[in-house]
């Protein structure tokens, strides 16, 4: 065996304009230690690291995987060093570049702090025009605000095992982003029969018609790989805000944009005419079981 292959892949986790949300989400990973043991962490915003931050910003190190969290602002400095210098240096050195979170992938929430210059590493929203265009083939986008820890763990493990991570046209791993966050939603039956949630705070009803849920238009396995292993936004009655897509954050997140009561955006890939035909007919059948409360608790008073 080549000794070079025995060496653990090294990681530099570096931050642009960020809230640290991906860092903290990653710390929730089950069996975090097992994953970390497979890598050499040269630098991380909160975990023990083998290098101090000064040596990172001096740009003299090598690393296998460069993880970038946050929006890329070309004028930003870390430790008095231009971020564009640092990012380009490690982009060239690393075998893989992981744009972690929607900020690093597409610009995300903090793109709006300087929209004319801020972007993701490879994409500026939908447009492929970020600063790492030259290193396109190395870039894996793990979008999400924040990312689910397992999404990153999957990507890192695939790299560590030298398996190819297939990606979609937005450079996101297909195995994570091929499904919609609608898939596995516990409210699916309400969607099928077009029963909308009358209000927030209810177990019953689909959030797509009034409450702004983007799950049928959003690539993310949120209802397949559950958050914190226990739940998801739609399961607790919060609409999906489409945080894994390049247009996040959209406007009016708690209401569905409709044209004369007709949802402007309809489930991905479904022709509007077909959707309306199906929806109109499904709505005709009033299913008693789906109209009432699932559970009727006896109130104490």
């Amino acid at each position, binding site marked *: 065996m080549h000794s070079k292959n025995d060496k653990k892949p090294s990681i530099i986790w570096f*931050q642009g*304009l*960020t*809230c*640290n*949300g991906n*860092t*903290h*989400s990653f*710390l*929730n*990973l*089950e069996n*975090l*230690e097992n994953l*970390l043991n497979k890598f050499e962490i040269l630098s991380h*915003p*909160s*975990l*023990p690291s083998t290098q101090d*931050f*000064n040596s990172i910003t001096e740009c003299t190190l090598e690393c296998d995987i460069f993880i970038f969290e946050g929006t890329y602002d070309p004028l*930003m400095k*870390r*430790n008095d060093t231009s971020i564009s210098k640092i990012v380009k240096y490690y982009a060239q050195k690393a075998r893989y570049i992981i744009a972690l979170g929607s900020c690093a992938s597409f610009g995300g*929430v*903090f793109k*709006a*702090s*300087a929209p004319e210059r801020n972007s993701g590493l490879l994409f500026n929203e939908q447009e492929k025009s970020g600063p790492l265009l030259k290193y396109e083939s190395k870039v894996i986008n793990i979008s999400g*605000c*924040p990312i689910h820890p397992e999404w990153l763990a999957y990507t890192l493990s695939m790299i560590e095992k030298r398996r190819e991570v297939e990606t979609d046209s937005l450079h996101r791993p297909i195995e994570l982003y091929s499904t919609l966050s609608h898939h596995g939603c516990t409210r699916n039956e309400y969607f099928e029969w077009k029963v909308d949630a009358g*209000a*927030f*705070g*209810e*177990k019953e009803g689909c959030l797509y018609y009034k409450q702004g849920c983007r799950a049928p238009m959003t690539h993310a396995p949120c209802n397949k790989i559950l*958050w*914190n*292993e*226990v*739940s*998801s*936004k*739609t399961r*607790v*009655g*919060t609409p999906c*805000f489409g*945080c894994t897509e390049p247009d996040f*954050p959209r*406007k*009016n*997140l*708690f*209401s569905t944009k409709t044209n004369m009561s007709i949802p402007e955006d309809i489930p991905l890939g479904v022709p509007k005419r077909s959707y309306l035909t199906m929806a109109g007919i499904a709505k005709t059948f009033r299913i008693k079981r789906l109209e009432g409360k699932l559970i009727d*608790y*006896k*109130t*104490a008073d």
Partner: protein
Amino acid sequence: MITKQLIEQIEGEASILFDMKNGVVDFATISFPHFRGIESILKGKNALDALVITPRVCGICGHAHLMATVRALEDAYKNAGYPIELSKKSKIIREFTLTMEIVQNHFKWIYLTIIPEVAKLSNSTREQTPLKGAYAASIASKAIAVFAGQWPHSSYMIPGGITTDPTNLDVLKVESFMDELIGFFEKESLGVSLEKFLSFESCKDFKILNSDISFLENSLIDMKMNQKGFAYDRFLVIAKHTFTKPSKLKHTRPFSINAKYVNTIDSYSPNQISYAKNAQYKNIFYETGPLARAMATNFPIVKNMHRRFKDSAYSRAIARVFELATLLQHAKELLVQIDISQKSFIKSVDISKITAKGIGVVEAPRGPLLHSVNIKEGIIQDYKIITPTQFNIGSSSKSDPTPAQKAMKGVTKAEALFIFRTFDVCSVCTTH
């Protein structure tokens, strides 16, 4: 001689310029460089969108931001003549998830921030276990996520209540996470039962322990942190919660307070770029956070500690440990009070009917977090955020230093850096 020190592995990045005299810090200025402009991002948006945007101020205390937003919006509803009604259930669940966010924060601070620093400063050979903090925090996050859908970055609180409608199945699951977490805390952190720990009356009681927490306590004493790191001995708690109460304390004397007297002033950090403003109450600096909250609630052992060691770095650090213990117990008590048959959400008028100002105040892990919003027909005209770190770790002039600047004076640079971290720094919040 002036030297610059970069502070990382906090929430975000900060740097301190030390002016040293005779080997000790004569004056220090602090800067937080990475401005993100959340307040201006919010302008022109639907006011409800703030429930999604403001949690993104901070990855470690986004839930506090969510609650500050929902309180600010509900205050605006009230001021517009449409008072919001909340069920007891929704209030308790909100309080529970906020409590658990503070819990995960404190676990991380203990294991990922302060114990490693203690070990470094005292050349300890004790085995480092930072991942204990991540593990405990992940259990706390699971408990939050059962109600809030996920942590970080949930938006499950909305004006009128919460989006979730839990069953007993959910409550039982959360209770079992609490048992797991408390069991972990007792076995791995305290070395004694939670009940016993909370009945400690003096610092001497730590002597019976041989655990991570006693290592922290003993080391702080060895490092003489009970004689260093003093701020103003003035404390501020602004928000109302089940676990603390609003109060302004000068030494131990409490006074009533009103959030409207919070003011901000420009920070002073020559030769460094900083985007943080300093926060004060009636033009005076106060310390906020766990020590302040314990003083406000007359928590016996912290009061006792304070009697002996005042607002030293020791008191500040140990108060955070005790707050963690108290909150774990408090969270369990909250769960028992949940009546699932109550409504989760009580509908009010549409946000587009609201033209008003509103203020929301929350006790975040590091102290009071204030959001104020001005809404016109449901659209945000103006949004202002004041974070706890702006109270504690502002950068002011030598004649009127902030609590952190004052606490770092007169000690070595290494000690000053340690003391700095006893405030639990959140740079990302500060540079919202």
